[in-house]
């Protein structure tokens, strides 16, 4: 699933942030989960019990699948808006 921004919409200016140290660009205010999906980043973590790949699922803050570290703090990528300079990292595998 590489998500695609719908043409014709007016969007805020793109800003730079990083995911796992890799530079990314997305409009300010877009949900981090969406911004990553548009960049082709779908797998965000592995399930703690079986270790299977997981990504954003409900996009509304309920399922908790899109947990990432934003500037070192665990956050749901679907609820965090993109801001310039965000340092986003996957959660370590051992983290619940």
């Amino acid at each position, binding site marked *: *699933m*590489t*998500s*695609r*921004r*719908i*043409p*014709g*919409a*007016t*969007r*805020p200016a793109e800003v730079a942030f990083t995911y796992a140290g890799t530079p990314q660009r997305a*409009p*300010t*205010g*877009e*949900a981090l989960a*969406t911004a990553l*999906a*548009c960049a082709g980043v*779908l*797998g*965000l973590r592995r*399930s*703690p*019990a*079986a270790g*299977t*790949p*997981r*990504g*954003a*699922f*409900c*996009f*509304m*803050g*309920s*399922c*908790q*699948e899109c*947990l990432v570290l934003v500037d070192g*703090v*665990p956050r749901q990528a*679907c*609820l965090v*808006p993109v801001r310039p300079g965000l340092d986003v990292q996957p959660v370590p595998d051992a983290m*619940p």
Partner: protein
Amino acid sequence: MRQADLIVLGAGPAGTEAALAASAAGLDVVLVEEAQAAGGQVWRAPYPGLALPKPDEDATAGAALRDRLVASRVETHFNARAWSVNTLPEGGFRLDAATESGPLSLAAPRLVAATGAVERVIPFPGWTLPGVVGLAAATVMLKAQAVLPGQRVVVAGCGPLLAAVAAKILASGGEVVAVVDRASRAEWLAATRHLATRPRLLARGLGWALRIAGRRVPVLFGHAIHAAEGQDVLEAVQVAPLATDGSFAAAPPRRFMADALCVGDGLVPGAEIPRLLRAPMRFDRTLGGWVPQVDAEGRTSIPGLFAVGDGALLRGQAPAVHAGRLAGLAAAHDAGRSDAAAFAQASAADHAALATLAPFAAAVSRLMALRPGAVRAIAPTTVVCRCEDVTRGMIDAAFEDGAREVNQLKHFTRCGMGPCQGRSCGDVAAEILAARVGSREAAGCWTGRPPLRPVPLADLLGEFDYADIPIPAPAPL
């Protein structure tokens, strides 16, 4: 601690209307919402600075609601994650939330819970793969982000959201490779008589169907997702026909190459506040599952606690507006702001509207209700609880080991004990157990417990200096 006359939790159509009505009737109202703007899922606001190419009816209605809220005296807290609601010994409620500016504590004699519904997905092999998203998730991407979920999309599940999502993807220039509907053509025909009670909505639905047909997208009625395939992300989707009981018919699945699957099998009321406060509940399949017992104005059996909208009784957006307004008016009336005659007069129109809207809402709810056969068809190796990777086989084994009720099931297997707190799996896990213990009533529902959301401890503590904490001098040795 901020003292108010009324706390409203959830700023969807029901909660916002409740807050507006109570505020207009003279109450000091605080509205708390997890998202960054009011509107809920149906009227979800585009993020700040995003302008949709073609705003639809929902976008316009949502903008109007947000304008009314701004013009009102309601105090709003967005991006606020409510993690605790308590009853106070002197009566009334305390709500605690984590916000971007630190902890928020509110107290009020009355509280309206309008927390909306969560989506139900009937598990299939591969449903945990990245690239598989909820149907409601797709609406969030389309409405609030102006993003297509993928390049080649399969849309699957049941209810009117299917056609809405598929048509929206097509109208936005995306490709839908198949629409997979659990309901048969006959079920839709049977529902049409009731759907026709709201001609504008029926026409809108037909418009979606025409758009889908016009693009020659295969629409598979009486089918469901059999499996999702892929190594690390979704690559293909298997679709199979259903038997009349909702389980899979003995026919080989069809395979569609797809990079996104949007799937939703109906909605479950997120009645977590009534459950947390131990309000009496009842199970009603056509209202989405376990719902709080409420009166005509949304009062639960706990004095001062109201529950409205899809988080209480699953009826959809239009009834939620009226139910919300009734709860707001009733809260003001109960607080002594209106006498019985004035309250009856003010609430009559909303009561009448709810009655008019009932047949449509019931028909849609029936299309979206959980089908027991579909749950019977879940394979033993399929993951049911995503958080803890608990399979159907593990749930059945827990029953064999003596688990007779969902909270026992949770203790035996960790099903529902992960960070989503059973929101994703609860309804299906309970249905699996109910098939063994005889009924959903016997299987019960999860006991509500704080925190309502996983919240980092630092968010609860806020900023403070250890040096400021008064520590008594140590006792002399």
